[in-house]
């Protein structure tokens, strides 16, 4: 290979990577289902542990659904780069000459499509299980739609930092949960505001702001983390 000029255009590389990762993910369909099943199991633990009283469930529903979403995301995060790291393709991406930031963004997108989007799609079922008041369902879905990409974005930084560790997954959750606190607070506040009949659009605005900020900053940090891990 002569020189460092990447073969192919930027957007071409981006789309190729997304397609490749989606193909790989769908080849192992059972692994795809794992975070989904995890989500369902975790949610059902709450009524089992707390009691099936509908009013209590309704009160804690926004928090419980969001916490389950956090847990499910963290469980699936480790897979974001790990298999590529283990077989050496990650290093190939780094030296390919394409900006690592874009590669990170491509992988984050794949992760969200495979792990975050199912959470959004499952949320009506979770809402029914947790007896979430029906008028709040729309906002609940909105918060998940806006928030789960942020979870993938911020989580990718943690993955980048721990990818070279054998038990990276365990440390990953410790690293990433404190960073998730603001999203959790704002998202649940939005849903609870609707339940109480209070204005809620400012919370959605904050979530949008969070999404935009993490979309611009997180891929750089994740790329920097990967460079350190691979050094």
């Amino acid at each position, binding site marked *: 290979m002569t020189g460092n000029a990447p073969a192919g255009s930027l957007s071409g590389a981006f789309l190729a990577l997304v397609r490749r990762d989606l193909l790989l993910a769908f080849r192992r369909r059972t692994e795809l289902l794992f975070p989904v099943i995890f989500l369902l199991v975790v949610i059902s633990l709450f009524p089992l542990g707390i009691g099936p009283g509908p009013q209590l469930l309704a009160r804690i529903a926004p928090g419980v659904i969001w916490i389950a979403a956090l847990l499910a995301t963290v469980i699936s995060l480790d897979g974001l780069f790990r298999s590529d790291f283990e077989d050496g393709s990650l290093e190939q991406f780094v030296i390919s000459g394409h900006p690592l930031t874009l590669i990170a963004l491509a992988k984050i997108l794949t992760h969200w499509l495979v792990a975050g989007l199912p959470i959004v799609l499952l949320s009506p079922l979770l809402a029914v299980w947790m007896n979430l008041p029906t008028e709040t369902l729309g906002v609940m879905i909105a918060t998940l739609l806006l928030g789960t990409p942020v979870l993938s974005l911020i989580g990718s*930084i943690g993955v980048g*930092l*721990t990818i*070279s*560790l054998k*038990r*990276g997954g365990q*440390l990953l959750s*410790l*690293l990433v*949960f*404190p*960073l998730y*606190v*603001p999203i959790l*607070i*704002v998202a649940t*506040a939005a849903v609870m505001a609707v339940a109480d009949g209070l204005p809620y659009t400012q919370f959605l605005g904050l979530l949008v702001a969070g999404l935009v900020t993490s979309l611009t*900053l997180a891929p750089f*940090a994740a790329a*920097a*983390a990967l460079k*350190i*891990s691979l*050094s």
Partner: protein
Amino acid sequence: MTIEKTIDNPPRKNALVLFIHKLGSPAYFYTFAGRFIPWFWAIFLVLTAIGMYQAFFVVPADYQQGQSFRIMYLHVPAAWMSMLAYVIMAVLGFIALVWRIRVVEILAMSCAPVGAAFTAATLIAGSLWGRPTWGTYWVWDARLTSELVLLFLYLGVIGLHNAIDEPRKAARAACLLALVGAVNLPIIHYSVKWWNTLHQGSSISLLGGSSIDSSMLWPLLIMSIAVKFYFGANLLTRARVRLLEQDLRKSWVRDVVREGR
């Protein structure tokens, strides 16, 4: 030849830059830092003695809260220091990542355990202050909750640093994490503060409704300055030991140990 001449007779305008460069050398930093440490400890002890005396014997008891408010003179300076330590760690981490100076990497990493200690002390003092004030050992008020999240951030930095074997890679990874945490810290802080008011109507604080008399503030100020000298002394000590451990086989370390410094 020319290099030695420059070090011995530096042109004036380059002296500061040269000094900063010298500090990046482990041997020079070890010696230079070693001169400050005893002074920092001395100042810390003197200020703490004055502050504690004032806190317990000069400041009158608060009618509504009883004697337990005196815990404030530990809780608040420790809280401030825990946050300042994280900021310092993040700034040092930034410098370490951009300029790749090993001494700065070590300094940044040395901030973490000290900061974590202050955070732990803040939480325990706050918990014990809360018991006579609120009746329970833990209250999810804004400051304690923020401090708890801060403790998790510190533990994450320490954990990541310990998990990676190669020392420079470990330091760089943990510095990046510290930076990411620092960027998030104000967001976390404000969201927790706001979460607190959201769920309890009005913001609850351990200091309660009584206004703070100015005579109560002096020990607070003295203790918050004292604590910074503790931090400085501890930080430099940890950095020096780390350098000895990492440069075990180098000649400057042999010289230092032989001379008993």
